[in-house]
């Protein structure tokens, strides 16, 4: 089963084979987890979202076309759920028990956790977290997942011009936040890409 294609495994999930779900989970868990982490900046949320994405894959397998690649579906589900999580988080204050955990030092995931050892990593984490959500999602898909502009446009179901614009402004903000403005190379013009 390990060597089967994603499409073959989706068909098996549609037939009720849970082991196929486990194989797909092992194959794509890092992609989903790290995408969610880059958007939410929260390791617990990323772990929850990882579970939720694959539970939805199981639950809605019959709606997935096995003839099409699975990764765009995973990216779409991950970005949508991460988007919802960030918006919910903005709307509601942190639950009291989480706050208490954090205050007494057992917090599993305080903001910008101290384990980040590399200065550049801390900088990029803060800079990405400060981006408006639509820009953040495009930046993550482009820089972390190495997706092409056309692929991002299809995953997010927005025009490619919108993707280019969000990437342009997101990159500009990252460049400022990370102190990369003094670079010697000219700006990248996404309109020509």
């Amino acid at each position, binding site marked *: 089963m390990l060597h089967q294609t994603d499409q073959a495994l989706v068909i098996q999930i549609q037939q009720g084979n*849970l082991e196929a*779900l*486990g194989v797909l*989970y*092992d194959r794509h*868990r*890092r992609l989903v*987890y*790290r995408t969610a*982490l*880059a958007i939410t900046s929260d*390791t*617990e949320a*990323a*772990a*929850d*979202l*990882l*579970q*939720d994405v*694959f*539970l*939805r894959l*199981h*639950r809605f397998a019959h709606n997935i076309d096995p003839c099409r690649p699975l990764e765009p579906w995973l990216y779409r589900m991950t970005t949508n759920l991460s988007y919802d*999580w960030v918006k919910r988080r903005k709307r509601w204050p942190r639950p009291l*028990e989480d706050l208490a955990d954090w205050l007494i030092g057992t917090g599993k995931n305080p903001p910008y956790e101290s384990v*980040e050892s*590399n200065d*550049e*990593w*801390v*900088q*990029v*984490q803060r800079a*990405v977290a400060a981006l408006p959500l639509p820009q953040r999602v495009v*930046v*993550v898909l482009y*820089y*972390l997942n*190495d997706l092409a502009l056309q692929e991002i446009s299809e995953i997010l179901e927005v025009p490619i011009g919108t993707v280019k614009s969000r990437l342009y402004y997101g*990159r500009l903000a*990252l*460049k400022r936040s*990370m102190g*990369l403005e003094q*670079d*010697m*190379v*000219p700006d*990248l013009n996404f309109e020509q*890409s």
Partner: protein
Amino acid sequence: MSNLVDATIRQALKGWVGQHEPPATGRARLLLLAATSTPRVAHISSFRRFDQPAPSRGAASLATSMVAEVVQSPLLWMFQVA
């Protein structure tokens, strides 16, 4: 197409996120939840406590969601009747 700024952003982003691994218990928990899945996907916060080390918090969370379910149904029914 890539330049220094892009390379720096890409490297930093991959470096930060790449040091984090998904929880080791994730697969087993997923298969358990999928095997016992209810007609609707449970709320995300009720998953969080499942494999936490402190059983009391997990139990409290589970109890809260069960109470919410029990209370919610008659309330909905009453609103519908009204």
